[in-house]
């Protein structure tokens, strides 16, 4: 009874705060025009804090950074160590790591002192307006000036967009450029190797932990119910989970893997289904502890697809490998074509698995942010109240529709990931009787 009322109060507060948190949409800069694209990217990106509303950021625990140039590991008990100030900017730099807009970045310049250092973000606003002034104080801007003369129209637009992004941290009146954490795309998607790797409990990691604990709690209770209420009809939480369990068992595992082998893959399929479903649904809640775009982050879907990849290929029987490497029953010349295609297929299967999940969830989130952004686009960032009103009404209906659609997508994508995993596993453990004659 008590937990229920606490939950209600929490929900009410969260809804109220969720309304206020729309303010963040305009946080692209006080003077800069509202940029829906940038806002969307900011909202679906990972962070080292939970943005509540206004200048209130919830710090996350265990900040772990690994320096690739031999400076070692920096461990901070929480992102509050950066002394979170205005707009989620930290007032302290630790081992050159700083918190900017709720996200940890690093000061590029190795001459910057290590350890705890007070910094400011004062020069931030003037930076975009007075470009050349900072070029002399900044270190990496030496070649910037002569490039400016040859800028075309497109570059000028890009330059406009750059204003407010080109953030520098200031120490002793001097501006320092920032760099982002290492990504493994090799520069293909705009990332690349930098001086450090980030192993912190970020918003996405927190979301996964939250989902894992929540599901753990639910499933242990359900499992306990099966022990204590042995032989009785399911009730409550157990009654809610059982049809889902039976659904995955009878509609996914059995038809895809077969009666003989399905049982040993059930735990994986169940774990994957509920873990992804949990991440999908939690990502749709626009406030703490939701709002983490975990299943719309490719790192996470890659890791999940990796499990399917490993389970499939580690359980592949002789038939499976024969069919990939030397397909029986076709001429040798055709085999030379088929085999590379089949080998590619081994890797493509999990790749489409993670791209599909990532793309569906991310697309949904971007569309929702874009719809909410209508308020600010039509309202001209607060200058046009009538436009804002029209935008608010339109955005409410569009967002409601989109959220309903996203609910469907959340369940559907979890189901698709599970059923495709099951079908890959099924293909790996299936016994081909016709193959026996061909050998």
């Amino acid at each position, binding site marked *: 009874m008590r937990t229920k009322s606490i939950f209600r109060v929490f929900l009410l507060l969260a809804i109220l705060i969720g309304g206020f948190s729309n303010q963040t949409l305009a946080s692209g800069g006080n003077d800069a025009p509202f940029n829906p*694209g*940038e806002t969307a*990217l*900011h909202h*679906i*990106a*990972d962070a080292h804090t939970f943005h509540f509303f206004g200048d209130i950021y919830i710090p996350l625990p265990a900040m*772990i950074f690994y320096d690739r140039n031999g400076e070692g590991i920096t461990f901070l008990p929480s992102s509050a160590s950066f002394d979170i100030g205005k707009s989620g900017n930290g007032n302290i730099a630790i081992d050159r790591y700083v918190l900017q807009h709720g996200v940890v970045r690093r000061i590029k310049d190795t001459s910057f002192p290590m350890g705890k250092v007070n910094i400011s973000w004062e020069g931030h606003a003037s930076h975009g307006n007075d470009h050349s002034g900072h070029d002399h104080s900044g270190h990496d801007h030496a070649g910037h000036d002569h490039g400016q003369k040859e800028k075309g129209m497109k570059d000028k637009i890009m330059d406009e*967009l*750059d204003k407010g*992004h*080109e*953030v520098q941290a200031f120490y002793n009146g001097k501006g320092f450029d920032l*760099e*982002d*954490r*290492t*990504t*493994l*795309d090799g520069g293909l*998607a*705009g*990332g690349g190797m930098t001086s450090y790797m980030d*192993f*912190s*409990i*970020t918003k*996405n*990691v927190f979301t*996964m932990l939250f989902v*894992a604990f929540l*599901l753990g709690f639910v*499933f*242990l209770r359900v*499992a306990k119910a*099966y*022990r204590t209420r*042995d*032989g009785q009809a399911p009730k409550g939480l157990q009654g809610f989970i059982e049809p889902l*369990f039976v659904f995955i*068992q009878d509609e996914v595992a059995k038809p895809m893997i077969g009666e003989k082998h399905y*049982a040993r893959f*059930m*735990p*994986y399929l169940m*774990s994957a289904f509920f*873990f992804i479903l949990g991440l999908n649904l939690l990502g749709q809640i626009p406030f703490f502890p939701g709002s983490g*775009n975990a299943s*719309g*982050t*490719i*790192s*996470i879907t*890659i*890791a*999940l697809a*990796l*499990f399917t990849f490993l389970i499939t290929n580690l359980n592949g029987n002789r038939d499976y490998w024969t069919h990939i490497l030397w397909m029986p029953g076709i001429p040798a010349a055709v085999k030379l074509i088929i085999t590379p295609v089949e080998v590619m297929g081994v890797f493509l299967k999990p790749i489409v698995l993670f791209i599909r999940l*990532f793309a569906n969830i*991310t697309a949904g989130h971007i569309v929702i942010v874009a719809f909410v952004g209508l308020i600010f686009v039509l309202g001209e960032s607060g200058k046009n109240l009538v436009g804002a009103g029209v935008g608010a009404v339109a955005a409410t209906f569009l967002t409601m529709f989109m959220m309903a659609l996203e609910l469907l997508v959340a369940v559907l994508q979890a189901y698709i990931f599970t059923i495709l995993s099951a079908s890959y596993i099924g293909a790996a453990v299936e016994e081909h009787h016709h193959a026996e004659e061909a050998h």
Partner: protein
Amino acid sequence: MTFLAAARFWPILPEPGLIFWTILIFLIFWTLMSKFAFKPIASALAKRNGDIEDALKTAEQARLEMANLKSENEKLLSEAREERAQMLKEARDTGAATIEEAKDKARQEAQKIINNARQEIENQKAQAMREVKNEAGNMALEIAEKVIRRELKGDPSQTSFVNDLVNEIKLN
């Protein structure tokens, strides 16, 4: 470059930290749930499925047995009904026989009584006739005596002759 650095499309960038944490968290989740939730739930469900199947089978058997019992009962009942009808019929027959017998007896008795009465009447009649004869004989004798006495005073042969005659009358 700076533009990309600031407004990066983060979700599509594979990050070692996130991949590491996802693998770790999911691996632990999977292992623990497999051991403490999904396997026990699956076996509990399988067991319950078996139990339900058994129960259904038992119910079917019980139903068949019930049907058997019912038909047996019906058989017994119809037998009992038949028996009752038999008994009733027998009782009715017996009753009728008894009544018939009683009637017969009564008729016989009545016949007997009637016969006896007739006999008695016959007897009484015979006695009365004898008495009348005797009386008539005696009176005739007396008259005759008186007559004869007057004519045949003291003749004993006459007296015995008359007595003989009287006795002859009595035999009738």
